[in-house]
């Protein structure tokens, strides 16, 4: 990160924090203190977990200048496959959970690889290839589940889905319990952030998004890097599919096919990742998802009509990207 990026980065964080604080103060007063209850804050984090993890995978794809429209369907497909697998094997406890997760991630990663294949081999636009995957994965999840949720026979996933992390400790300290999925989200964020900012692969992701030809002529295996970003996105979708399956104790072909795709992309873009590629961050995506989550939560506490909530959400997304653009122009002028 250079000085200017760093300045713009902190300015963005500061602006986001200020925005959130003002919102918090207003909403907390209006909701008679319900908003700032620790239990409510934890609730927001739990709610953003799924879109945030999807957004983290999508961040890699978008920085290379691509897009992955298939993640919502992959959530459904991997959830169904994971539930079928868990019901079919005679295992229990940790081996069951670990193997089911591996199978789900394997399916998601494979779908990501299929997404990437025509993109890197034939230079087809990812918009189309991942749109095709969206349809195929959705259809496959309906076929596999016969259109009905696949109920889990084992109760071993309960802790993963709705359990608390170190529940005894938080209870003893009179803290709100931390849901296990939130811990998953934090792990994904940390791993993805290190991958993107500190490894060769991450550097190459930015280089390809910034100038693919220069990256190729520098000896970077562009096809391999691009393939891997779709694999990561598919794997993140699979983690979400797995967590949803654990949460609902079933794998449903309907899960993930609603607002997840577009709201996770919104989190990425609101978080400062450029849709034209070359710029972005995992942390930004977390803040983007947080902004959207806080907004929903506040509107619920204030009893805002649920149809109106959509209108306001759209307006806030627009406002966020307009402010970001104005900030960029301001910085460009002052250098």
């Amino acid at each position, binding site marked *: *990160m*250079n*000085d*200017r*990026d760093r300045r713009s980065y902190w300015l963005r964080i500061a602006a986001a924090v200020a925005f959130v604080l003002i919102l918090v103060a207003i909403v907390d007063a209006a909701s008679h203190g319900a908003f700032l209850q620790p239990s409510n804050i934890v609730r927001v984090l739990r709610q953003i977990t799924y879109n945030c993890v999807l957004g983290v995978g999508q961040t890699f794809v978008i920085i290379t200048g691509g897009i992955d429209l298939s993640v919502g369907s992959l959530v459904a497909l991997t959830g169904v496959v994971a539930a079928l697998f868990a019901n079919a094997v005679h295992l229990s406890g940790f081996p069951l959970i670990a193997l089911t997760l591996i199978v789900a991630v394997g399916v998601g990663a494979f779908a990501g690889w299929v997404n990437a294949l025509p993109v890197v081999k034939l230079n087809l636009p990812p918009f189309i290839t991942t749109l095709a995957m969206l349809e195929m994965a959705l259809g496959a999840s309906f076929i596999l589940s016969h259109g009905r949720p696949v109920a889990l026979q084992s109760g071993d996933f309960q802790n993963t889905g709705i359990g608390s992390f170190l529940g005894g400790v938080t209870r003893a300290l009179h803290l709100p319990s931390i849901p296990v999925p939130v811990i998953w989200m934090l792990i994904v964020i940390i791993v993805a952030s*290190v991958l993107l900012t*500190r*490894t*060769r692969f991450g*550097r*190459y992701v*930015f*280089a390809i998004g*910034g*100038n693919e*030809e*220069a*990256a*190729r*002529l*520098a*000896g*970077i*295996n562009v096809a391999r890097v691009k393939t891997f970003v779709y694999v990561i996105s598919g794997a993140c979708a699979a983690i979400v599919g797995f967590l949803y399956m654990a949460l609902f104790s079933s794998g449903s072909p309907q899960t993930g096919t609603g607002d997840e795709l577009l709201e996770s992309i919104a989190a990425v873009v609101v978080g400062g990742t450029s849709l034209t590629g*070359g*710029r972005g961050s995992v942390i930004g995506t977390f803040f983007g998802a947080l902004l959207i989550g806080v907004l929903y939560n506040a509107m619920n506490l204030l009893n805002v009509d649920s149809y109106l909530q959509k209108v306001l959400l759209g307006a806030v997304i627009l406002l966020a990207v307009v402010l970001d653009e104005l900030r960029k122009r301001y910085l460009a*002028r*002052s*250098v």
Partner: protein
Amino acid sequence: MSAPLLEMSGIAKSFPGVRALSDVSLTLEGGEVHVLVGENGAGKSTLMKILAGALQADQGQIAIDGAPIRIESPQAAQRLGIGMIYQEFTLVPQLTAPANISLGSEPTQGGLIDGAAVRSRATRALDELGLQIPLDVPVSHLSVGQQQLVEIAKVLARSARIIVMDEPTAALSDREIERLFAIVGRLRAGGAGIIYISHRLEELARIADRVTVLRDGKVVTTRDARDFPVDEIVRAMVGRQLDAHFPELANPPPDAPVRLEVRHLTRKPVVNDVSFSVRAGEIVGLAGLIGAGRTEIVRAIAGADRPDAGQILIDGSPLQFADIGDAIAAGVAFITEDRKAQGLVLGMTVRENVTLAHLAEFVDRDLLIDLAREREATNRMVTELRIRTPSIEQLVRNLSGGTQQKVVLAKWLLGNARVFLFDEPTRGIDVGAKAEIYKIMLDLTARGAAIVMVSSDLPEALGMANRVLVVRGGRIAAEFSRAEATPDKVISVATGAAA
């Protein structure tokens, strides 16, 4: 005496922290070619952007035909008859020449575009220039030279009387340059005023009526071209006397090992059975017209394109075809023609660009990039190549052309490459930076590197090479030693005037 066609007086412009222009005055008469020269950063572009309405001056007046005017936007500039021909073209590649020429001002009939009028307008503009260009194909199918002619026709079709040409010959072959000069002559005869920006000083005597030299945002002098010899122009530009244009080249000892050998390299239809070799410490120049196949030869060596046949050996061992990674591992460095499109990631920092091709060397336990070592290596290159950047964390987008080119060089020097392929190494960079690039090339040969240099700048191709190979129609048509090579000989071979 009547008022001049264009008069800019007392123009000043500051950017935060930089005074780009101070008290600059410039006049342009109808029927005059006024050449503007200066090193990169001297203020030429800023001045022309003000004239084009892309920037607003902080102070100063502009008058056309004696009437004071304000140029608030590029559209306003167009209405006032100011036409810009930029180095980077502003054509829509998928549209035909007529569609491009009328773009934004299409004649309509009943609300629909009048195709016949679009075409006749293009024909008229091209006739005026005495040109014939295919009208029915997308301009992306035309050569660079033809595309530039379309740009000129586009400006003419908008009745421009003040025409600014920014480095118009940078991408042209010698024959295309001749044609451009003929067109400039025609426009001048027609009463237009032309502001012509160029780094190629040897062109000036051919076309300039007056020359204005800018340095550090100020006008150094404006003089008649007839009594302003090139060495004096150079002195005015840099503010000091430059040494001889090209340094002395030492020939490699006769027993120097062959670093690069190309055997029967063929890539249809642009490269046909090309064979040559370069020894350690030697610079071989590839001269020829644009499109002769020179770039394609070096791209095939670098692994960027897949040849049909032939063999490429580095220090005696054959290279894999179309494998950039193998070429880099074997010590091949390819400094591309278009540094912005192919050489650099403009939105990344100096550090990230410098280490991009050799990032594996800065990784600990195959996992994380060691930032401290990366910074240290980048700082070393910045010092060694005297890269003028405020910090290694500066985005390369914000650096001048010459400095950017040094960043590209740093990227390849970092990896101890032994074979350097330079494609137009000094295009669009100023005199001072050129001399430094030449110095770096000499240092490389002194360390035993072999250099292949593609250059359309004939003095450079002759002055900076131990041997010159003239490429024509994808073949090596002739070879000259430095002592034998003269501009006449090379041009006559390159154009096919001599066998």
